[in-house]
């Protein structure tokens, strides 16, 4: 009875209308500003909201087949069939799936890499390429607290966010040459030379995002040389291995050059595009060390950074990867399917360029076929992009980046026509 009275009394005191209840309190978040929309993912949102039957999405970098549909690779479907019902879902170790990491290192460093044999690579499973970059950025902040990161201009926008959130000061280096729509090699080399010794450099291993402009092999050798002279640390973001040329070994060439030249490197690898595992968030962060002992130490510290972020990485995607790469037949199927994707994109580049040339565009479009990978840096201005979207319902990021994966034999003519219309008077 007393308890009920007490409860009744406190109910009145602390009910909705009370001073101690919440009605008198205003929100803690009153002053929270609405955040700007993510420039890349915002494009897809706008595309989805558009009712026009002609709409084309060449915004986000996810592969589409020639019908404009997302693709789940057959090797992935088969791997999932084998996994379902047969595995428990226990926690992975903090460093993720050992098997998946082993196979992933082979792709980047080479099947017979001495560094793998000598156990000199500290490597952990990461949340796709983003997670790998972030883990490295946090590691860089903790263990090279005075260092800064040099980021190419332009780059994937999220790179800036990642190193900023890791509190690593960032600078930029020249990369894209707008006039030639190619590489600004001389300025790049100057920036490498002028950076303080021991700076960290972010390099796109292949299929630069967003420009599609990659250094030639010779240029990579010079870059490697100069970086070595300056004692810089090269960090590779490799999100498109296999997807650029169709041949994973070829796409790893830059990394192999740096390894030959004796650099200690770091690599972020992603299976989002080349295995079509986007939403599974599967990737790997590796750091090449002096010896096995140091690799063990570095790996343990990477785990210390992963633990307070997500404890241990998701198991499903890792199982898919290790099932495929661990089975010669499935791996062979994967390599075929990757080549199909890369070839389709190369084919679309050719088709888009030819269409524009046939339309008699006054501009040069050779950069469409000279650039490589998923993206084409068209050279269009933000205003021209806006016009494409408004008048033709074509969706792409305002930097003029076209995701070639969104181009199909069905829409390439429409796309070429639209691009020609908005650019022919420029």
């Amino acid at each position, binding site marked *: 009875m007393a*308890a009920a009275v007490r409860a009744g009394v406190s109910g009145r005191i*602390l009910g*909705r209308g009370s001073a101690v*209840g*919440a*009605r008198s*309190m*205003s*929100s*803690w*978040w009153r002053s929270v500003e*609405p*955040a700007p929309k*993510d420039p890349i*993912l915002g494009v897809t949102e706008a595309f989805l909201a558009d009712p026009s039957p002609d709409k084309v999405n060449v915004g986000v970098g996810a592969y589409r087949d020639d019908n404009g549909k*997302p*693709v789940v690779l057959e090797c992935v479907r088969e791997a*999932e069939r084998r996994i*379902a019902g047969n595995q*428990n*879902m*226990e*926690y992975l*170790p903090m460093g993720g799936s050992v098997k998946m990491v082993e196979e992933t290192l082979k792709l980047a460093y080479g099947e017979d890499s001495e560094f793998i044999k000598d156990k000199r690579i500290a490597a952990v499973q990461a*949340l796709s390429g*983003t*997670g790998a970059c972030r883990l490295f950025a946090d590691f860089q902040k903790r263990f*090279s607290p005075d260092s800064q990161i040099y980021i190419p201009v332009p780059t994937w926008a*999220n790179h800036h*966010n990642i190193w900023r*959130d890791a509190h690593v000061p960032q600078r930029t280096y020249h990369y894209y040459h707008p006039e030639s729509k190619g590489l600004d*090699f001389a300025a790049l080399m100057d920036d490498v030379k002028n950076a303080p*010794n*021991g700076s960290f450099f972010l390099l796109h291993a292949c299929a630069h995002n967003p420009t599609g*402009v*990659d*250094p*030639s092999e*010779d240029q990579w050798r010079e870059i490697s*040389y100069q970086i*070595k*002279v300056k*004692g810089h640390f090269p960090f590779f973001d490799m999100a498109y291995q296999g997807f650029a040329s169709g041949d994973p070994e070829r796409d790893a*060439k830059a990394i192999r050059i740096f390894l030959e030249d004796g650099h*200690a490197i770091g690599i972020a690898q992603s299976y989002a595009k080349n295995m*079509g*595992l*986007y*939403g599974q968030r599967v990737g790997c962060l590796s750091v090449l060390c*002096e010896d096995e002992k140091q690799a*063990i*130490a*570095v790996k343990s*510290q990477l*785990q210390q*950074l992963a633990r*307070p972020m*997500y*404890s*241990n990485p998701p198991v499903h995607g890792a199982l898919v990867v290790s099932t495929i790469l661990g089975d010669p037949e499935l791996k062979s199927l994967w390599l075929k399917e990757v080549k199909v994707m890369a070839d389709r994109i190369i084919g679309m580049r050719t088709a888009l360029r030819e269409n524009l040339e046939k339309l008699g565009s006054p501009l040069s479009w050779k950069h469409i076929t000279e650039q490589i990978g998923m993206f084409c840096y068209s050279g269009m201005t933000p205003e021209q992009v806006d016009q494409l979207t408004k008048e033709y319902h074509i969706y792409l990021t305002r930097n003029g980046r076209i995701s070639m994966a969104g181009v199909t034999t069905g829409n390439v003519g429409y796309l070429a026509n639209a691009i020609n219309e908005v650019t022919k008077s420029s």
Partner: protein
Amino acid sequence: MNPRDSSSSSPSDRRLSALARHLSSPSAGGVGGGVSRSLASSSSFARGDSVFSHVARAPEDPILGVTVAFNKDPSPVKLNLGVGAYRTEEGKPLVLNVVRQAEQQLINDRARVKEYLPIVGLVEFNKLSAKLIFGADSPAILENRVTTVQCLSGTGSLRVGGEFLARHYHQHTIYIPKPTWGNHPKVFTLAGLSVKYYRYYDPATRGLDFQGLLEDLGSAPLGAVVLLHACAHNPTGVDPTIQQWEQIRQLIRSRRQLPFFDSAYQGFASGNLDADAQSIRSFVADGGECLVAQSYAKNMGLYGERVGALSIVCRTADVAGRVESQLKLVIRPMYSNPPIHGASIVAAILRDREMYNEWTIELKAMADRIISMRHQLFDALRARGTPGDWSHIIKQIGMFTFTGLNSQQVAFMTKEYHIYMTSDGRISMAGLSSKTVPHLADAIHAAVARAV
């Protein structure tokens, strides 16, 4: 590689002239006197060249280290009571039937794709998770005042929430109970908050130090963030009573402190999903704001899939919208968007009435088995006449029991009886079975009864 035609001299000419320039320059950069050595060497770089040479090996995680030691032990009677993952009577991990069903559904649906989820995750999963924890009829949900984002299990939800607070909340101190899950302080520190403790566990009673808790929260600053375990406190298993929760709520609201709930065991503690959410719901019912980190690791057995959700209950829908947009800015540079597989399984189960019901039955069976282990262990110790009051074993709730054994006793039990547990005396009841309870009881009895 696309060939480039940038200059007339050959690459090797350019390299040689660069080298010559470099070696003749008095202010040559590079690695000091070792420049020529490092240029000449090929595949290996010399000791001391690595910028990470100074990195020391981190200590083993204390909890996971227990399993490592357990795995090494060849004894046939060894028992792993370390990590908090559910085990069956046979000591095996369990994948729920309803989870297998959901998995099959996903496999059989050829229309499913693996595209990126939105930054906030699977929208249907978010809505269903909010309903699960707050109640489908929660006024906060009906008024659109809740923003829910999919995160990587409980850890990820705590981290994203912590980072949001560090950026947007005026107080950057979080008060966490003593003791708490070992990862809590690290999560919040790396998120940018400073961590302080409030009294929680009373070793003398092996229960709640309620006075100490009220005093410490009473003297914590106005507006401080307070971490609360929604149910089945980890590691102690000691939860406030309903009345004590009410007093805690009044105190926190009167000091305008911000509650951050960690809900890792909903349904797993009492066997009833609503009962285990009661503490959270009473805070939401008063109209105030709070954060909630939800995990499906234990209650759906989805451990390694990393499925969870962070909800922030706000005063208005407009605020909730703005908060959500800022949460996206925290998530994008961390991992862009969350993993799809586990969330799809959860959504499949929660949206289907039959599967949901089946899940509640399987969940209750897990909770009941654990409660049964508690009673069996308590009875076994009483039967042996083990000195001391062991009633806390049946009073505590959830996966863990804080036995009250000290580290020497624990070490003794490991050495002589091959019992693996964390040195703070915590045992995972999920690791026990009817067959192994006697062995554990023997070990505890021996540890307690031996002359120290």
